[in-house]
């Protein structure tokens, strides 16, 4: 494997990655992946994943023993170069290589790790089964139950916003195993085979017409006891431990993509002359906004770098991740909104955007509407602000209802 691990300097590592990208990133994948069907999307993602895997770039954050082992600095460089080369995103494998792997590494048994980590490298797809219809951002109030029945649990309930569930082989499932316990107690964490009888997946169309969010209906689904991760009724803690393994690298990737393809496309559209020959960028107001976005993206990148560095030194603050997520998602929304404004009426005729892209596709209206996928899921912007205020700044909590 050609990584920088073996004494190579970071500059050498960057050169290696850049060179690899020049050779391996598919050309014009954006064009080719616009408007394709589901099968082609999955095939494209799996192939790209294997190509990255071959170079040692698919799971850089995993321990070396399992196929990863890049340092934080190398991972940052990797994401910078992939973004600079406008490589496709790893959308399909996202939960597998991040949440599933983190869960297994942090709380799984050896048996569970050996069963799943190599499989994930071979393309096993996972889905997260946390959210529920009535719970929304309030995870502690989840209602799906798992009742003990001999050597298994019988699961009943419904999951929502399960991204990519139609393609998933396995599910990270939170379910209530002790209905009498207080809200955050009595929840257990399971690995659930999506081919189990009683699992039904129904895609939900989102605001841009895509269907990667899904509902999962669980009807007397039997999950063996061996599928439990961590102790029974300690699922909440397992979920928290999983979250704690996220070290800011996803935000680095998103910031780099916004700073590369995203901003480049924005400058491009500002330079495109209208029918009357006038370029938006010839307007001082447009230049002012562009310079503002350039500045904010620079700030975002620095925030991300700081987050990664503080994870490395163990000095990360309790709200640091929320600051970055909030700032990124609202910046993305403002930037794509401005893109819509500048691109004018013609922007509305772009009816599809490339799959495997983020919201920096340059299909401005779709990118803008898609930006709510960042301000709502994973804790709405409102919830991030509360976290920042209470945990980051130590402001008193809102009084609980009488």
């Amino acid at each position, binding site marked *: 494997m050609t990584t920088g691990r073996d004494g190579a300097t970071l500059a050498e590592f960057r050169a290696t990655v850049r060179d690899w990208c020049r050779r391996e990133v598919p050309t014009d994948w954006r064009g080719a992946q616009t408007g394709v069907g589901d099968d082609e999307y999955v095939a494209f993602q799996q192939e790209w994943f294997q190509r990255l895997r071959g170079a040692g770039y698919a799971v850089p954050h995993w321990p070396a023993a399992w196929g990863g082992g890049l340092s934080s600095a190398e991972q940052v460089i990797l994401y910078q170069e992939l973004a600079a080369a406008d490589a496709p995103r790893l959308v399909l494998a996202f939960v597998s290589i991040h949440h599933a792997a983190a869960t297994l590494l942090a709380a799984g048994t050896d048996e569970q790790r050996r069963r799943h980590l190599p499989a994930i490298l071979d393309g096993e797809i996972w889905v997260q089964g946390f*959210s529920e219809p009535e719970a*929304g*951002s*309030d995870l502690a109030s989840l209602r799906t139950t798992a009742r003990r029945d001999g050597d298994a649990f019988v699961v009943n309930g419904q999951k*929502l*916003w399960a991204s990519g569930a139609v393609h998933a082989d396995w599910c990270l499932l939170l379910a209530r195993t002790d209905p009498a316990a207080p809200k955050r107690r009595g929840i257990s964490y399971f690995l659930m085979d999506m081919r189990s009888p009683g699992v039904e997946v129904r895609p*939900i*169309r*989102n*605001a*841009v*017409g895509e269907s990667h*969010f899904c509902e999962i209906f669980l009807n007397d689904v039997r999950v063996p006891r061996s599928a439990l991760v961590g102790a029974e009724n300690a699922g909440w803690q397992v979920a928290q431990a999983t979250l704690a393994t996220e070290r800011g690298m996803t935000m680095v990737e998103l910031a780099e993509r916004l700073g590369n393809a995203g901003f480049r496309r924005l400058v491009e559209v500002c330079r495109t002359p*209208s*029918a*009357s020959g006038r370029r938006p960028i010839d*307007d001082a*107001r447009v230049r002012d906004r562009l310079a503002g976005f350039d500045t904010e993206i620079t700030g975002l990148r620095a925030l991300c770098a700081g987050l990664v560095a503080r994870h490395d030194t163990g000095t990360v603050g309790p709200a640091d991740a929320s600051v970055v997520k909030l700032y990124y998602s609202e910046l993305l*929304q403002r930037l794509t*909104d401005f893109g*819509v*404004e500048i691109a*004018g*009426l013609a*922007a*509305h*005729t*772009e*009816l599809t955007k490339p799959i495997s892209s983020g919201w920096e596709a340059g299909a401005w*209206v*779709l990118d*803008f*509407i898609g930006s*709510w*996928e960042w*301000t*709502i*899921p994973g804790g*709405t*912007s*409102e919830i991030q*602000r*509360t976290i920042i205020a209470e945990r980051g700044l130590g402001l008193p909590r809102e009084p*609980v*209802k009488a």
Partner: protein
Amino acid sequence: MIDFTEGADLAELHDELRAVARDLLGTAAGGAPAVKEATPVDWEQLAAVGWLGLEVPEELGGAGASLAEAAVVLTELGRAAARSSYLGTAVLGVGALLALEPSAGRDELLRAAATGAPRFAVGLATGDDEDIPFHLRADGRGGFTLRGEARFVPDLAEAERLLLLARDPDGQPVVVLTEPGRPGLDVVDVPVLDATRSLGDVSAAGAGAVVSADQVARFRGDPWAAARGLRDRGVLATACDSLGAAEAMLDATVAYARVREQFGRPIGSFQAVQHACADLFVAVSVGRELVAAAARACAAGDQDAGRAVAMAKSYVGGAAVEIAGKAMQLHGGIGYTWEAGIHVYLKRCVLGRALFGTPAAHRARLAERFAGPRRG
């Protein structure tokens, strides 16, 4: 049909018209939008309730009302995110005809417009560029050759008659009466993300289209003022539409926040939601005043109408996108689903912001009066 004869209290008439509209469009209860797809409004019904002929003189079968009343209907169509050819036929089409020199032909068309058959589309500039899109050259045989292109023309695909804004050989604005399918004339439907709208391009390229002298209609009075007035109609109509959509989004969000519970209480009891809704309410209140003022100014033919519509459009165009966006945000995950229908409004508002001039383009126009002569 409501009586718009003089002396009646306009505010009351508008309230009545609004109530009828909400009833007809199924938005009477306010509340959450139920729109998921672009369901067209029944065209015959619009004709039957007299909306198509609101501005058509009574003697030609219309209601003899004004653009101020059409503005009420436009706002309600926006509120319902309704798909109809109202803008093309009843606002732009009738507006263009009313601005022409009276003639038997014109009156016949006005009478027809009120009945909804044929439908009209008006070929004029709908983007930031306000130029007149077509021009005529005398063909030396008493007729003309038409060339030019109008893009993103509302309700073009459904239109059986076209009114194209053109410069005559002397450079003066005139209206060319024609139909889709005429030789040399290209009509293309342009699908947009906002599925509740119909937009299309009409062009006469290459050798152009042959136009006879009797197809060329002149404006009454100052043709430039008439052309500007026609564009102002489009601007006002889009502002009304965005206002209505914004109102619907505010209502839907408030209704949702009252009932949706999280963390054991209605989300509407959280200050973050309360204060966000308060800001939306303020923006809707300001927008409503600006739109009302613009509608009054247009209806009265005020000299300053252009300024009033630019203000209304620039304010409401921007605010409506923010309001629909905030509605999506405050609806949480549900709001981002296709089913919830918020996206329908968001797309309509985003398109509405650009149609007939972006806020920035209108503000640039408004600022001309302050700039004064250049010094230094």
